[in-house]
């Protein structure tokens, strides 16, 4: 395609946008709404993941060695645990070190226990994947030299459930909104196509290729989608930052800053918007060209 022709077709696309200003604005607004909700779903998902990571750091399993464990056996046990599948990190705390921690916490009351330490060597373990919690705990229990395993299973299970629900709902919401967006764009382009059917019939009669006929509508779709993407991104940023600054959680948990996901969102909004516009117009135009005579 010659540059002149390309420029002409792009100009035609822009001209068409201006001629159908009301419908263009309406479809941009609808698409912005769809992208905003999709962006919100993504941010919710990211925040749940963030909370999941935070809770994961708090959520540990403690394996206690049998009473008679020697230092060498404890070291060997740590090596065994370290090498296990799904184990991310193992921290060894000898029963002496454990007693010292308790002493720091509870004071002189525990001084008398120094001679006959009732505690056991402990291994603080973090997992790679909390969804495989049960099988990993079972595997640890089966390790020779481990007497018992303590954990808070409820927290980990709740976290896994929340994440799964957010993921499933998020995917469906996004799929639904994508379909709605496509429908809206396709309808806007359809109206433009009908308002320009005379031009299209003339184009065809003088020998325009299918691409030449389609191109301005594709440009229009991409511009609509891109504009909606940019506007939606700006709005999401403003709204999210206001919420983030006014929401505080207890402890060290907080909402992730927008800057942590800014480029993923920008890319998603712009590419998502433009692709939706392109697909919508291609669909609409293809249908029109098939329905009308050759």
């Amino acid at each position, binding site marked *: 395609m010659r540059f002149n*022709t390309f420029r002409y077709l792009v100009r035609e696309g822009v001209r068409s946008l201006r001629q159908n200003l009301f419908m263009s604005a309406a479809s941009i607004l609808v698409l912005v709404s769809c992208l905003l909700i999709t962006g919100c779903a993504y941010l919710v998902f990211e925040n749940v993941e963030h909370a999941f990571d935070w809770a994961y750091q708090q959520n540990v399993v403690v394996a206690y060695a049998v009473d008679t464990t020697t230092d060498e056996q404890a070291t060997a046990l740590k090596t065994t645990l370290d090498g296990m599948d799904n184990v991310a990190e193992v921290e060894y705390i000898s029963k002496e070190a454990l007693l010292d921690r308790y002493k720091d916490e509870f004071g002189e009351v525990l001084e008398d226990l120094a001679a006959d330490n009732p505690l056991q060597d402990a291994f603080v373990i973090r997992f790679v994947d909390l969804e495989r919690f049960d099988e990993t705990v079972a595997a640890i229990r089966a390790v020779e030299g481990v007497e018992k395993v303590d954990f808070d299973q409820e927290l980990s299970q709740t976290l896994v459930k929340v994440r799964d629900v957010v993921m499933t709902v998020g995917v469906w919401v996004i799929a639904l909104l994508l379909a709605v967006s496509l429908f809206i764009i396709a309808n806007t382009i359809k109206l433009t196509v009908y308002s320009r059917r005379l*031009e299209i019939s003339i184009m065809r009669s003088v*020998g325009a*290729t299918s691409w030449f006929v389609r191109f301005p509508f594709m440009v229009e779709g991409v511009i609509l989608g891109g504009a909606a993407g940019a506007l939606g991104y700006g709005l999401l940023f403003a709204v999210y930052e206001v919420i983030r600054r006014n929401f505080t959680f207890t402890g060290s948990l907080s909402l992730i800053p927008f800057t942590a996901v800014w480029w993923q969102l920008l890319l998603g909004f712009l590419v998502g918007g433009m692709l939706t516009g392109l697909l919508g117009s291609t669909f609409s135009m293809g249908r029109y060209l098939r329905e009308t005579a*050759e």
Partner: protein
Amino acid sequence: MWLIEFRDVHKTYETGNEALKGVSVKIEEGEFVFIVGASGAGKSTFLKLIMREEVATSGEVIVSNFKLSKLKRRQIPYLRRAMGIVFQDFRLINTMTVFDNVAFAMRVVGASHREIRRRVPYVLGLVGLQHKAKNFPMELSGGEQQRVGLARALVNNPSLIIADEPTGNIDPELSYEIMELLTEINRRGTTVLVVTHEHELVKSFGRRVIEIRDGLVLSDSKEVPHEV
């Protein structure tokens, strides 16, 4: 050399309407031919087959060496670039100037700015509308609008002009003017095919006349048929 050839062409629409029932016609390069016939006789189908808007049910249509039954969808635009079409209802874009309406046909085929600037005023000059280049179609008379349509059909220098009832929407006194223009275009070597039912007009030009009736070629001669 034959520009258009119909070999025993039948066309039956999905509705069951049998529009052409075995038409065989040859039109040479450089000819001026009138296609006449009453409404529903099959004239429009005849034209649609030439423009490849429709495909023959059986038989063969050959235009500019293209066998239309074998023509692929993506080749259709290139067939149409070999012809210029003049419509009864002018089909001008009212939001474009006369110049842009004519230039539009050149842009569609990828002509450069320079070519457009050179060619459009020349063609507008041929139809006597150079001075109206900046006007919009609604500011012109019916005859002038049809001349713009003719300029648009001519601008890509086609070897065939198809005029579908070109005088159907204009005053009788202007009809003659349009036909004169088409004659002049033909004199320069372009094949011209005019569909009309204006008996007097056909008679006064004394050219080849193909009469279609009930899907068949009733007559093909330089004489004007009795009933048109």
